[in-house]
């Protein structure tokens, strides 16, 4: 998620778009981790030991805080909760203004078992 700063928050799901995954033998689609936070299967950013941190408004997770978005996975992960600044431009008028964004981005790269039960290799980004 890359959103205007201050807009973060977990809310109820109403209608949601679907992702188009490229075709591979088997589904090629990974399973989400079981843990649910609000509308999705994820943990907020924070140490894997589940200790309380400002980046996780849901508090402590004594059993652990999995940074991966996908389950049945063996590989590398990266996670970053960031604030960034820059310039926004209206492409019609050419007007510019300073913008700030907040983001939680992650990657997963390795092997996984897809929804068809087949071992796959791949990389994914949480954006």
């Amino acid at each position, binding site marked *: 998620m890359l959103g205007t700063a201050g807009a973060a928050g977990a809310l109820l799901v109403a209608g949601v778009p679907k992702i188009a995954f490229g075709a591979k033998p088997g589904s090629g689609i990974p399973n989400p981790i079981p843990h649910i936070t609000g509308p999705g299967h994820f943990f907020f950013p924070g140490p*894997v030991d589940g200790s309380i941190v400002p980046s996780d408004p849901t508090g402590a997770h004594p059993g652990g805080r999995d940074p991966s978005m996908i389950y049945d996975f063996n590989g590398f992960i990266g996670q970053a909760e960031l604030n960034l600044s820059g310039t926004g431009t209206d492409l019609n008028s050419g007007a510019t203004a300073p913008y700030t964004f907040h983001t939680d981005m992650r990657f997963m790269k390795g092997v996984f078992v897809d929804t068809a039960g087949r071992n796959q290799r791949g990389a994914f980004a949480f954006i």
Partner: protein
Amino acid sequence: MSAHSYDPGISANKLFWTIPIPEESVDVHLGAGEALLHVTNISLSDVFTVPNSFSHAKTPVPAVINSLRLEWGGITKTTHFTSTDPNDQFAGYFLENSATIEVTVTTPAANGLDGFRFVSDPAATTISHFAQIGHEHNGTFFPG
């Protein structure tokens, strides 16, 4: 100019804001505590606000991340960890560090809305609240 928020949506199996990317987009040097995520031309949606990502009170419009470069570095803590949560089993080696980002994202004009482009300031201006990289195994691969 109004608010903008970008995400790729939720899949039919509830995989949250997660999309496949080319394997070569990710480069990890775990021993050095460094990693790079570099992607271009990623299609997603401008949902305008995070709440609107779920309510769709305002119809999301197509958008593109023209370029995203996210770098991790600088080890501050290392951990070998095995979860005790029976419902979400994972284990691995994790390194906390910091990260910087440079991104350009565009919302083309659509549905009567003006187009919008955001170009971030240089990576060094990033405020890193939390960052980590690691190697883990979960689910079927737990305990490994």
